[in-house]
């Protein structure tokens, strides 16, 4: 994909993560190694527990992030709006997908496979530095947001199960823990209040595929 088309996406991603020292043009160059993908509403992008082999950059639309609770019931962790990073943790540390991601509406993404991601991450140039700085800013954000959430949880929680609940105190629930895990896994960056005007430009291959699919319906 043309890196110039990705500059607004790169700029918003860097702003959303408060990343310093990275230039949008260079991050756009790093992301341009990805292949465009389009998903229709309800299509599953990745499933919890599967190997992590692709980093996705959400360019357009929303993705619903869910994780199964201890009884196997899917619980919603977040709704990600474009632009967002999806699946970077697994590529960084080799862990399996921590959640299931499903397209909400018509969704456009860029897919960077693991070899491309790792090669770009090791590049001694501006594009490599921009991707490293974005990932580092995201990891720092994940840790510091989790820290804040833990402090909130401790503040709200009952001191002991047997104690009479004080005003505004409550029992910690599994949902709290799932959401905390979601924060640590990087599902908490919100770009919805950033007002950058991002226009997703469909590439020629995707357009032909979509038109062919519509004709065959």
């Amino acid at each position, binding site marked *: 994909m043309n890196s110039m088309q990705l500059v607004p996406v790169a700029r918003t991603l860097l702003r959303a*993560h*408060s*990343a*310093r*020292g990275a230039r949008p043009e260079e991050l756009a160059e790093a992301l341009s190694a990805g292949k465009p993908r389009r998903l229709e509403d309800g299509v599953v992008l990745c499933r919890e527990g599967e190997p992590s082999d692709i980093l996705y950059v959400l360019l357009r639309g929303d993705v619903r992030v869910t994780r199964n609770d*201890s009884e196997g019931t899917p619980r919603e962790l977040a709704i990600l709006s474009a632009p967002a990073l999806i699946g970077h*943790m697994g590529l*960084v*540390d080799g*862990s399996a997908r921590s959640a299931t991601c499903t397209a909400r509406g018509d969704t456009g993404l860029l897919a960077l496979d693991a070899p491309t991601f790792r090669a770009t*991450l*090791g*590049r*001694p*140039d*501006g594009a*490599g*530095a921009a991707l*490293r*700085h974005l*990932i*580092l*800013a995201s*990891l*720092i*954000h*994940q*840790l*510091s947001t*989790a*820290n804040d959430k*833990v*402090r909130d*949880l*401790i503040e709200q*929680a*009952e*001191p*002991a*199960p*047997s104690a009479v609940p004080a005003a505004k105190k409550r029992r*910690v629930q*599994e949902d709290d*823990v799932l959401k*905390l*895990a979601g924060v*640590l*896994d990087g599902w908490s960056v919100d770009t919805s209040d950033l007002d950058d005007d991002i226009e997703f430009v469909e590439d020629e291959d995707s357009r032909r595929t979509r038109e062919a699919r519509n004709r065959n319906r």
Partner: protein
Amino acid sequence: MSIEKLSRLPMFRSVPADALADLLQRAPAQRHPPGTILFRQGDEADDAVLLVDGLLEVSVRTAQQTRAVGTIRPGEVAGEQGLFVRGGERNASVVVRQPSLTLRLTPGLLLAGRQNPAVVAVEQHLIATLARRVRSTNLAIQKAWKEEARLRAAAAPPPGAPTFRDRLMSLFGMR
């Protein structure tokens, strides 16, 4: 400081000597006696240090007390938030515990040195370190929650057993 000393750090083992020499030139080594405060909690975060030799202690101040929450050993970076996140504050203090040798890392150094394999190695090392920290924190929280669920399911939880809240406080250095 010699390049040999720097090249003994695991992150620099495959980095060419000329790249390490360039890093040393951009980030001159600094020696610190015990007791030196390198970072103070609440201060603006705009740089970090790579510990080459010595020992640093990380502490967190709460309304009630100041508590040591960890140590930094040679080959580790302290204060990395200041390098990659705009407008952040130090979330902990860092004090020198044993005579220490550090390299000061700044956003300007990372920008100017991004073609230097030594700088790339520092950043890749940090990505791996932070990812491990994220994963181990997550595992510890899940483990604490499983213990809590086991206690809740028990007909009569043992009196005085730590709650999930207690475990979180302990995990995050709040008690």
